[in-house]
């Protein structure tokens, strides 16, 4: 009886001690994460909630808060007949084509680098350089390279016999393609590095076994390499699509959405409405649409990672 009381009380003591430790762990835990928590709340959480609320308002920033009017879904209704907005969505959709393009070139290069080549680290740095360089500087360089009459690219095209080469970024039917070429050129380095890492994780025995069976290169690519890098491909596909929605610098420096709205995209349209027209409510509605697109893609990624990736 006494003994059990003693164990009982010691257990009680231990529990007290444990809960005291837990309490201090709680406190310390909050202390460690509080700067991050506070920052994320102020910089991201509060603004994104505000974006949703403001998307139901009609408000020009310059007029002061008292002029703000609540107009329900009118902004979204206006969006559905806004030609520039629809053009932006179409352009965003077309721009997604850069993602498979980038991935194919990167995978091709990665396979060669992963096999035996000399100067491995030189190649990694060379292909990666556009990715770390500032988009503004790169855009300016390409602007001159693409110069319609005197630019080196068109001079080369004219020497090899193309008499009237496209005027690239000043031609409405070539401007978007020009941006896509530059964007692909910038993004290849990133995909390449990720693919090389993915290829290195494929067990070499698989290739040796295939060699013994007399398999050719294409067979090995089709049945070993391609399926085994599919998690990497899936990751690159999703991050690539999300990144394509965020393209801003290239448009801002090279075309400002023109000529004739041929290169406008969601982010650019948002920027124009918000910071040039100061149309806060309308821009917030565009931001909500942008958010929903990226949100949907992220959800697809979460589900897809479990479902479609075969290891």
């Amino acid at each position, binding site marked *: 009886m006494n003994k059990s009381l003693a164990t009982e009380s010691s257990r009680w003591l231990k529990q007290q001690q444990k809960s005291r430790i837990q309490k201090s762990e*709680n406190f310390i835990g909050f202390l460690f994460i509080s700067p991050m928590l506070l*920052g994320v709340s102020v910089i991201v959480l509060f603004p994104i909630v505000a974006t949703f609320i403001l998307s139901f308002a009609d408000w020009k920033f310059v007029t002061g808060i008292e002029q703000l009017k609540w107009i329900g879904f009118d902004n979204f209704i206006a969006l559905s007949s806004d030609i520039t907005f629809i053009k932006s969505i179409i352009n965003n959709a077309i721009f997604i084509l850069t993602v498979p393009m980038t991935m194919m070139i990167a995978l091709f290069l990665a396979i060669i680098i992963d096999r035996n080549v000399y100067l491995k680290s030189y190649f990694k740095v*060379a292909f990666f350089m556009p990715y*770390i360089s500032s*988009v503004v500087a790169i855009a300016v360089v390409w602007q001159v390279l693409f110069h319609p009459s005197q630019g080196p690219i068109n001079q080369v095209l004219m020497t090899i016999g193309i008499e009237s080469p496209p005027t690239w970024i000043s031609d409405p039917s070539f401007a978007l393609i020009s941006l896509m070429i530059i964007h692909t050129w910038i993004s290849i380095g990133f995909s390449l*590095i990720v693919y090389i890492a993915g290829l290195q994780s494929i067990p070499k025995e698989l290739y040796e076994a295939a060699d013994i069976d007399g398999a050719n290169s294409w067979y090995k690519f089709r049945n070993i390499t391609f399926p085994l890098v599919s998690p990497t491909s899936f990751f690159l596909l999703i991050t690539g699509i999300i990144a394509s929605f965020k393209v801003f*610098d290239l448009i801002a420096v090279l075309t400002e959405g023109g000529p004739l709205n041929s290169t406008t995209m969601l982010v650019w349209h948002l920027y124009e409405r918000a910071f040039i027209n100061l149309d806060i409510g309308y821009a917030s509605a565009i931001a909500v649409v942008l958010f929903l697109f990226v949100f949907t893609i992220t959800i697809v990624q979460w589900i897809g990672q479990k479902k479609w990736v075969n290891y």
Partner: protein
Amino acid sequence: MRKHRRMNIKKIISTMILFFCSIAFLLPFIWMLSTSLKIETDVFKYPIEWIPTRWNAISNYQEVWFGEYPFYLYYWNSIKVAVLTTTVSVIVSSLAAYGFSKVKFPAGAWLFIIVLATYMVPPQASLVPQFILFRYLGIFDTHFGLILLGSFSVLGTFMLRQFFLGIHDDFIDAAKIDGAGHWRIFWRIALPIVRPAVATYAILRFIWTWNDYQNPLIFLRTDALYTIQLAMQKFTTINGSFYTLIMAAAVSAILPLLIVFILGQKHVIDGIALGGVKG
């Protein structure tokens, strides 16, 4: 022996193919550098003069660095913003990463999910309220505001947390029995172990901040506060067709990064590879 030689020839051919591909990636940079050294009338000479015949390098770079838009000022601004953003971001992220991985408290799990969920928000979607908020707080058009915008990185927190999780709990418990508190454990044990990861993240954050164009464009108005990317754009608009000057500015904007990248090459490439494979 013969097989060995065949392997070598294959290796040489692969290297050659890659080398030609890599030229496509380097040529724009070489063109940029070579143009920045020329005189204006030689810019569009064809066939392209890769090595300038008439040099004008000193006067070009002098105009960029000490002319009407003096780059030394914008360099200083960019260095200040990038270094401070990187420092604050590394501190905030590593503290949070430790709290989310090595301090066991029930609220931590779901708070981590909330923080992680904010990664889904494209930065541009919260831009408008940020703009209004910053004006209201009086930190619009200041470097402080710009630094604040880049200091709370979910990606950094997530990345460092992965590495903290790799430290065995017994290690932490042993230190606790010896009487060390979480602060000491974090500072003396955990952080030194994950130092390579911290270096990788710091280099990446520095590069991203240095290259950022959108935030300075929206949150800065005063010329004297411009960062290098914003100045680069203004410089281009003003100097319209002086391509040698524009290229000298572009070289100046890219060069420091190239140095950071080449010095920390292994960290950057490993970090990106790791992030990519883990997803």
